[in-house]
């Protein structure tokens, strides 16, 4: 949009003019904006979605990434080959709408940026006769390569579908930027290097050059020059010759939509929230994660691949270390190659579940090596286990009585209206074990559980708190014990105390042993386990699944409590806290269902994360697992 030529006006009118212009801007631009948007939407009723789906199924031909131009000092490289697929993901309005990817601006700044962006886009769309998404797609069609070096140096190389188009686009960009920077000489400039003009449009914050249909961009001038040197055949070594990088690339196999390669220099210096020392202090952390502590070893590069076909996102991280099958950490790796974690159990209203392969006997027998600190909690645990199991050896007789296939289930509760609903809703949680010697150990576990309940009741009684009554229940012919608080004296059925979330139960039947926090979940598990047991997933030793929409509804049920928590833990006002808490279910729903698998199916450690972004109502990622049974509402 061209500015009107400056006119000479009498001084007194200047103020009036300012007011009129201000009014015009305040009223006119949004109106125009709205009208134009309406017109465009009318011509293109599905908006971006229309464009997205047109490209949904086409898979692009493999691109060549210009690794020979990237200096070998790079420590991380991102390569995007299936640019359309990635753009579909980023531009999907459902996802971006829920995640609110817009920057947190407010007031005039937000308007200014919105108007500026809109005007910029309009200009290019008119000039090149296509909507902006198409232009972006064309610009990156030949692949995107981004490399990071030391001291926060970045280089990005983008190849368009046509060298001529890229050049024209660039020329127009320079022209627009030049006009906009008329007040700021020096903001837009170019210096030639190796015969190629190197531009900056923002006074030296970033530099770029256009060569052979590629746009090369960097935040440091020396980096751009190094790229141009390599292109000219001069300069030091390039990434294309780097052995560790090439082998990481080869080991990936198929052609992922995007891949990130990271050198050991970065992996070893990642700021982990808890260093190895803290990991050692926490037996649970050791149980879950110690097996993966050696995932990144040696000089090999780590590869992270991304694919996102049609509403599914899958990430695969390939480690560089091999599982350690001897010594203390071997408890997480199956002896037989065909063994691994069992598929997750499926129950109604499930929020999350996990299935692990962990040899608990081996784990506990090696506790001196794995978690040497003799904490008070550990001593207390041993004292209690000694009492509950009447002096039996913990590693051999207790942990060793169950086999390494352990499963955890978390499900939303369906509260009995006769009892009432607690004010804070906690989901039901259950652990499922398989006993090696069910005839002998079932009754031992029952005795231990009853002793524990007795101890809990006794301690509660000492603090003048009510205790639980143990009862025997029957479900589908399976009898089991369950303890519950008496609700006879409760007046307000819609606002019960938190303790009414808990009705601990123990089930030992066939060869399975269930510890559940509610009888409802115990019943559902009895049903699920009644079906023929599926085979283990070879090589995988940890599976975690989360159902985003169930998690979201759980958060919403507890939102008032979380809002108050936020207010006093973060000093927020009520409004800020409400926004913060409302964002969580939004994100959880947007991410849909997630499944994480970790293990070493081909001898090398991998982690795979699958997100099903728009699952049909109620289904979870479990529908794609080997159990193959859709959840029912």
């Amino acid at each position, binding site marked *: 949009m061209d500015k009107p030529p400056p006119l000479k006006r009498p001084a007194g009118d200047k103020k009036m003019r300012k007011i009129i212009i201000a009014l015009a801007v305040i009223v006119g631009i949004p109106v125009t904006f709205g009208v134009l948007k309406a017109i465009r939407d009318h011509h293109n009723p599905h908006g971006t979605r229309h464009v997205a789906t047109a490209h949904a199924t086409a898979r692009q031909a493999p691109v060549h990434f210009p690794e020979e131009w990237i200096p070998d000092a790079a420590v991380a490289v991102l390569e995007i080959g299936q640019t359309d697929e990635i753009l579909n993901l980023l531009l999907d309005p459902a996802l971006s709408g829920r995640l609110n990817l817009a920057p947190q601006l407010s007031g005039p700044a937000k308007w200014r940026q919105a108007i500026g962006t809109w005007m910029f886009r309009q200009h290019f769309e008119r000039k090149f006769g296509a909507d902006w998404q198409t232009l972006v797609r064309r610009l990156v069609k030949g692949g995107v390569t981004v490399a990071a070096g030391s001291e926060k140096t970045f280089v990005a190389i983008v190849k368009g579908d046509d060298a001529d188009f890229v050049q024209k686009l660039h020329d127009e960009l320079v022209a627009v930027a030049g006009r906009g920077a008329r007040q700021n000489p020096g903001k837009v400039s170019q210096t030639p290097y190796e015969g190629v003009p190197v531009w900056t449009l923002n006074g030296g914050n970033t530099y770029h050059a256009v060569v052979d249909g590629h746009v090369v961009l960097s935040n440091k001038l020396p980096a751009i020059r190094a790229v141009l040197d390599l292109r000219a055949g001069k300069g030091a070594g390039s990434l294309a010759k780097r052995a560790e990088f090439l082998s990481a690339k080869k080991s990936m196999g198929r052609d992922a939509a995007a891949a990130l390669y990271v050198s050991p220099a970065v992996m070893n210096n990642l700021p982990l929230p808890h260093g190895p020392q803290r990991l050692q202090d926490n037996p649970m952390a050791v149980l879950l994660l110690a097996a993966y502590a050696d995932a990144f070893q040696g000089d090999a590069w780590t590869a992270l691949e991304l694919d996102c076909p049609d509403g599914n996102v899958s990430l695969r991280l390939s480690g560089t270390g091999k599982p350690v099958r001897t010594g203390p950490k071997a408890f997480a790796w199956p002896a037989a190659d065909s063994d691994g974690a069992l598929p997750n159990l499926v129950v109604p209203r499930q929020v999350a579940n996990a299935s692990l392969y962990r040899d608990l006997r081996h784990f506990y027998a090696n506790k001196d090596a794995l978690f040497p600190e*003799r904490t*008070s*909690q550990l*001593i207390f645990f*041993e*004292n209690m286990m*000694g*009492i509950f199991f009447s*002096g039996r050896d913990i590693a051999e007789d207790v942990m060793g009585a169950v086999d390494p296939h352990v499963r955890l289930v978390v499900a939303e509760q369906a509260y009995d209206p006769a009892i009432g609903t607690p004010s804070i809703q906690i989901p039901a949680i259950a652990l499922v074990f398989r006993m090696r010697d069910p005839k002998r150990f079932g009754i031992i576990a029952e005795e231990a559980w009853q002793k524990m309940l007795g101890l809990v009741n006794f301690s509660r009684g000492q603090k003048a708190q009510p205790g639980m009554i143990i009862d025997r229940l029957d479900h589908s012919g399976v009898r089991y014990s369950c303890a519950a608080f008496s609700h006879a004296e409760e007046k307000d059925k819609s606002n019960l105390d938190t303790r009414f979330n808990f009705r601990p139960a123990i089930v030992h039947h066939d060869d399975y042993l269930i510890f559940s926090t509610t009888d409802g979940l115990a019943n559902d598990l009895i049903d699920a386990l009644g079906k023929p047991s599926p085979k283990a997933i070879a090589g995988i030793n940890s599976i975690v699944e989360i159902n985003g929409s169930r998690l979201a509804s759980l958060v919403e049920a507890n939102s008032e409590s979380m809002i108050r928590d936020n207010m006093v833990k973060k000093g927020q006002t009520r409004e800020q806290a409400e926004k913060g808490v409302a964002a969580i279910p939004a994100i959880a729903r947007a991410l849909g269902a997630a499944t994480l698998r970790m293990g070493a199916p081909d001898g090398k450690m991998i982690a795979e994360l699958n997100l099903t972004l728009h699952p049909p109502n109620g289904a979870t990622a479990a529908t794609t697992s080997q159990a193959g049974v859709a959840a029912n509402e």
Partner: protein
Amino acid sequence: MTQTRRQFLRATLQASTLVSLAPLVPSLICRTALAAGSRHPGDDRTALVVIQLSGGNDGLNCVVPYADDTYARLRTTLRLTASQVHRIDDRVGFHPEMKECRRLFDEGLFSVVQGVGYPKSSRQHPDAERDWQTARPGDTHCPTGWIGRYADEASDRDPRLAPAAMVSTISKPFGLTSERTIIPAIRSLRDAAITPASHAAEHAEAIRLITGTAANDPNPMLDLVRASTATAHQVARRIETTSHAPNTTYPNSKLGAHLRDIATLVRADAGFRLFYTDLGGDGFGGFDNHAFQKDHHASLLRELSDAIGAFIDDLRRDGLAERVALMTVSEFGRTVTENGRHGTDHGAAAPVFLAGGALKGGLIGKHPELGDLDKDAPSHHTDFRQVYAAMLDTWLGCDSAHILGERFDPVDVFKA
């Protein structure tokens, strides 16, 4: 930030030198500011380190009566033989994992006060802990702890000081409950210093400016605050400079880290006379081994012994070992007979361990006779308050009778 604060203080407070204002400035501040220059204040002040062994330490497994028949008969699976222990004499020896303690013992830097307890202990954790922490067994109404009372008395004499500090991550034990004094919890050295570190010049400037300004409105309370602030900066500066000093290699355990921090605070003359730390943590305590005691206790003793060894060696290098005494306390000992779970239950008498450069050394008091047991536990012959009295009177130079509520004969543990 350092530049700005220094500039700001210089700019807004007219920097007058102390000399020109000398007639107006109270002598208290003069002394303090002069002392800011010297590294150690005039008097050689002693420090006491108390290590709480939470849960009830099994003395028989630390100082082992390996030759005793009763011991051999009743400790069926936990028994240690003559060849396993570090022999002290032909009756007792140290647990195999107490190697460093054994080394210090031979050099006269480690003592064992045997048979310490008190009459009519209930042998329950909350009660017995309370008895040791208040030093008033049976007084359920006692509102303060013995260390709290010590701190109150010490700060009555000099209000600028913080006489005692807890260097640990557990919740504050009752023994540190005081009426008037604030006893800080130092979880890491950052709590004790004025962060961030390495701004020595800023500290020096701050001290000069604070002490260099005089009020035209004499206000003793404000003077006291000024003196405390100046001291806080001095100590912070000393902690910065001494924490860069090389020291021995401490074991990689929680107790090792706590003792290393305590050594730094002693070196920096932070002014604390009494440090309190723990091994075994909150809750019932890591020493409460009712089940599978052998490995657990061994692991704890190794942590204790290695940490004390490194601590004393570190202090020795700076010639500070004579100024520090270390003492372990535990709410009770344990039974002689094993229970059926390869563990022991709550007992009565147990030894108290001491370490430091001013000790007499050796075994103090007789080993309790295992033929004369009090409900399956050894009987005591030394009241724990006698040990406290030794520390309070002889070592810290205050009135133990006032703090303990009665006069107790101090145990003779220090060199003449």
